[in-house]
């Protein structure tokens, strides 16, 4: 049984269908990527999974249960946690307060358990430890992305949704962020990743789906898609 299963997912903005009947699955422990150009419906799909965008048709099953009626903030409790597009760092909160927002709903049984997870996040992102009292709005893009991922980890997600973590970052920082994503997945956290940086994302994912104008046009193992001539041409800039 897959951890996440979308069946015929359709999401519309007014009369425009941004996502048209997507079906996909993510198994426990997998790193799955959604690749697509701007406007392909990637972010809309993520928002629908998190519940901040209503479905027009289709279903979202998490852990075997239909969660269509579960409110967005309650989905966090079930373990669906998202680091949103544009990072969504709270600008007027310190780095530490931002991280604490991650476990707003999923509180820890003991202070020790809390400290352990926080310590783990700060080990993944040593930069955040240096900046822990700095306001979110004053961080660089890379640091903000670290806050966004670290904050999501504070909720101990069963399914981590990462929406374009590489957006607007310098190549070196992108490398670093992707390394950490692999590391988090290696520790057993299931990840659904949305990316435009196909090279990095595909080479690191177990499987991938390619989205074009709201529909899945191709799917397969990451490395296989990486070798696909059509994919190469469309997403990797190789003629």
């Amino acid at each position, binding site marked *: 049984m897959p951890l996440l299963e979308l069946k015929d997912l359709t999401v519309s903005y007014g009369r425009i269908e941004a996502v048209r009947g997507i079906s996909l699955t993510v198994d426990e422990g997998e790193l799955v990527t959604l690749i697509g150009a701007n406007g392909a419906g990637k972010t809309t799909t993520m928002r629908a999974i*998190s519940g*901040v965008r209503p479905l027009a048709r289709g279903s979202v099953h998490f852990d075997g249960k239909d969660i269509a009626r579960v*409110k*967005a*903030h*309650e989905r*966090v*409790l079930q373990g669906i*946690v*998202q680091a*949103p597009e544009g990072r*969504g760092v*709270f*600008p*007027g*909160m310190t780095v530490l*307060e931002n991280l*604490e*927002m*991650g476990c*707003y*709903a*999923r509180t820890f049984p003991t202070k020790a358990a809390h400290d352990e997870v926080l310590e783990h996040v700060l080990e993944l992102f040593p930069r955040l430890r240096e900046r822990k009292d700095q306001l979110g*709005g004053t961080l660089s893009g890379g640091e903000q992305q670290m806050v966004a991922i670290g*904050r999501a980890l504070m*909720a101990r997600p069963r399914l981590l949704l990462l929406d374009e973590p590489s957006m607007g970052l310098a190549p070196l920082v992108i490398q670093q962020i992707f390394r950490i994503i692999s590391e988090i997945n290696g520790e057993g956290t299931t990840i659904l990743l949305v990316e435009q940086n196909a090279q990095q994302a595909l080479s690191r994912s177990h499987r991938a789906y390619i989205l074009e104008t709201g529909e899945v046009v191709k799917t397969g193992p990451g490395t296989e898609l990486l070798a696909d001539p059509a994919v190469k041409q469309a997403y990797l800039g190789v003629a």
Partner: protein
Amino acid sequence: MSALVLAGGQVLADGVIDFNVGALGRNFWSLTVSGLTYGSIYALVAVGYTLVYGVLRLINFAHSEIFMLGMFGQYATLMLLGFNPSGDVFQQGVLLTIVFLGVAMVGGMAVSGGAAVVLERVAYRPLRRRGAPALVFLITAIGASFVIQEFVHFVLPKLTGNALGGVNAQQPIRLVQPSTQFELFGANVTNVDLVIVVAALALAFAVDRFVNATKFGRGIRAVAQDPVTATLMGVSRERIIVLTFLVGGMLAGAAALLYTLRVPSGVIYSGGFILGLKAFSAAVLGGIGNLRGALLGGLLLGVMELYGQALFGTEWRDVVAFVLLILVLMFRPTGILGESLGKARA
């Protein structure tokens, strides 16, 4: 000098406006003390405007009526405690008086807090469900303000056998006879001044800690700064909205009790309007959406208004308050401290 003399000897507004610098200078410290007490009250009410604005981008114009209901709340509480409205001062001894004031304050806070939550539930939540535009919220706020006033004006007397509400102000219940406790730079500081300032400081400190250092406060700030991401963190926006109305309402209720100490002239259905407008101005003055700005703006407005009153004459007091607001906004459109609850929601 009691008139505006233009170049060429033309006299404007003779006898209408004074420039009594002497009065301001002579009474500077007593005006300051008095202004701080009014300012503390504005500050507490202003917090309600600013918090709700922070999470909803809504100017809750009915907040002045929440304050007015708090005046009735503390009044009713005192009646239930057995005080008979007579306008005379009850002599209870210091300790007992403080206890009664405390209970009355809790009564005012309960009524105002409860009313604010009901207001949110009845007036604003249905609009949010339907995704109404901002203007509709604003008009609803003004409408709700009238509804609450007229409720106290016409309905409340029928419900209470004419004990509360109605056209005329109720006889005040006075627990404290103002008496000078000590002098500060030649200004008399009364027991009433002390109670107001100390209580307001304690409440301001409490609400500041609540918003800046507790989990629920963090939830309020998260919704103010980025509502969608807050939801993704598991924050229920609806619950946070109710919470902000509750906190803002409770502070207005507490302010209502302090106000009846400052101005012991009885409670009336129209008694919240001007004060609410001033508190709203105070919130804008300090930077609406900014908690500390609201507190600072309240104190500043209270003091400046009394300086203005001494300088220009009593009837110019309200004018001074609003001219000050306009002047500050001309040079700092986001208020003195700027917007911080929802800071840089880029």
